């Protein structure tokens, strides 16, 4: 009921919110200049296991995780806190090598971080000494991309509805705005695989709904491959084409559920309600 009420409010708010997000550019030229479509990458995860060492005792976190995501797919990883979701994303981003198993992108093994696979961290981790724009241009600077950095940062910030905050410092942003800035920092690099670690976790319910819709729009527009970590079952069902359930630690794929509903989806869609019950049962929750 609460969700439905939120949804109604949201349906009212979203058009306004979008209008606000696009206020700058009048007429047909308002969108950022078209870029060559890069397209999503195919992700392959084969029997990936990983353990951490906590004072001499190994703590297994991932247990032979298998996962395939087709180019341009949208997969949600769902699991309770501490089950190893962030760890899996760090491995996919190439920040750490897995203890065993293989991770490939379009058949190429992942051997280190690369801007084509970007991770939006659970914490926004913006650099406090840079303005919002400076944070967004970080990847362009790091790779020495010449030219229209300002413009591209501006376009990315418009996408996430942060226009007007280009010159603000992170400590002047709200938690949700910081999350959106972090999203813009990734998007500006046109990644082929976008790894999202609970990017909406810190948002209030309303902004969260709006951001889910925006995320969906971005994904459908840019066609990157998306892996979204969340512990919100509804969020997973509304956004993803497939929901992967990792019910406990060490994480392994317990269920791989295809959500065959067209976008935009509604939370009270009976099929989604049914799936939600199914997933909660897998997670061992009474429904």
């Amino acid at each position, binding site marked *: 009921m609460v969700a439905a009420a939120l949804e109604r409010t949201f349906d009212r708010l979203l058009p306004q919110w979008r209008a606000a997000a696009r206020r700058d550019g009048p007429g047909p030229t308002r969108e950022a200049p078209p870029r060559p479509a890069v397209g999503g990458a195919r992700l392959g995860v084969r029997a990936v296991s990983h353990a951490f060492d906590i004072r001499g005792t190994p703590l297994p976190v991932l247990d032979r995780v298998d996962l395939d995501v087709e180019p341009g797919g949208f997969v949600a990883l769902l699991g309770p806190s501490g089950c190893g979701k962030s760890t899996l994303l*760090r491995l996919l*981003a*190439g*920040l750490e090598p897995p203890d065993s198993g293989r991770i490939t992108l379009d058949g190429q093994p992942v051997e280190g*971080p*690369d*801007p084509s*696979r*970007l*991770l939006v*961290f659970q*914490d926004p*981790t913006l*650099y*406090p*000494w*840079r303005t919002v724009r400076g944070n967004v241009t*970080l*990847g362009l*600077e*790091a*790779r020495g991309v010449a030219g229209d950095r300002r413009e591209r940062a501006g376009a990315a910030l418009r996408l996430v509805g942060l226009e007007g905050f280009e010159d*603000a*410092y992170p*400590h*002047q942003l709200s938690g949700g705005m910081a999350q959106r800035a972090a999203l813009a*920092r990734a998007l500006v*690099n046109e990644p082929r695989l976008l790894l999202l670690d609970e990017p909406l976790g810190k948002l209030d319910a309303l902004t969260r709904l709006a951001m889910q819709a925006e995320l969906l729009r971005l994904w459908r527009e840019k066609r990157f491959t998306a892996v979204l970590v969340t512990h919100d079952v509804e969020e997973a069902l509304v956004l993803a084409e497939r929901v992967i359930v990792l019910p406990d630690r060490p994480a392994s794929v317990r269920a791989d559920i295809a959500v065959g509903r067209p976008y935009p989806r509604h939370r009270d869609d009976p099929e989604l309600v049914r799936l939600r019950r199914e997933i909660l049962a897998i997670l061992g929750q009474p429904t």
Partner: protein
Amino acid sequence: MASLSEGAGLAPREGRAAGRLPLAALGAGAAWIALAAATQLLPEAGDFPYTGAFATTSLAAGLALLALAPLAHRLGHAGAWLRHRTPWLAVLALAFLAWELVTAKLEWLPMPFFPPPQAILEVFAEDWRKLGGSTLNSLKLLAGGYLIGAAAGVALGVAIGWSRTVGYWAHPVLRFVGPLPATAWLPLAFFVFPSSWSASTFLVALATGFPVTVLTWSGVAGVNKAYFDVARTLGASQRFLVLRVAVPAALPHVFVGLFMGLGGSFAVLVVAEMLGVKSGLGWYLQWAQGWAAYANLYAALIVMALMCSGLITLLFRLRDRLLSWQKGLVQW
């Protein structure tokens, strides 16, 4: 953004200051005129050629305060400063008056050791060439040593914080040698270095370098690891990670080190000038003491205080510029 809240906080205080402005300013003016009168009119024990000049200066200050009192609210920044500092100006006049009385007028303090204000004014007026030259020499020596020490300290600190190998070799040396006061090296330095100037530069650099190194190092070591993860996924090179992530993130610590280093470098500077270099304010102090020219001693101390305070202010200004992104900076 930051100035917004600041302005909001200041506004009511300024309002109150403006309300009691004329009285306070009149009081301050009166105090300076009283100082002038006491200096000029009371008989003094001794021969001070600048008594008249001091009285005139005080009188001018008093009259200026009286004249500016009704205008202060129209003088913008200078006026605001004047309003804010009026109580201080009044107390300053009273302090001068007390000083004048206990030295030249009543001789409660033994004379050659405690000269009256006009004797110090005399030093500034008569000996400004030597005093100014000494200040300049001190500044040159300090600047050379400090800049070398700061640059080396930052570089070494970053290297230790960044590279395991450098840390492995440099850490024990730093721990063993670093805490030694730079002045302890003095006899050795003057013996080893070709000139007392280069020896002193080395000592100042040493005194600066140690705290800068340690704090830069701890700053770099303490940088949030997630900052590096972010940069690495975005395609950053090692160079970028050091220069654009580690250094800016460690900068608040670096400035603490630079501040501590500056304090240490003052101490070493004075000692080095007293013992080795035959120039600079430290040497001037030594010289004044040798000739029992106590007024010169005080004058040099005043100049030195101004110099040190000015340099620290400069450092804080630089920090405020570079760290404007930080909240809640200490105001110097």
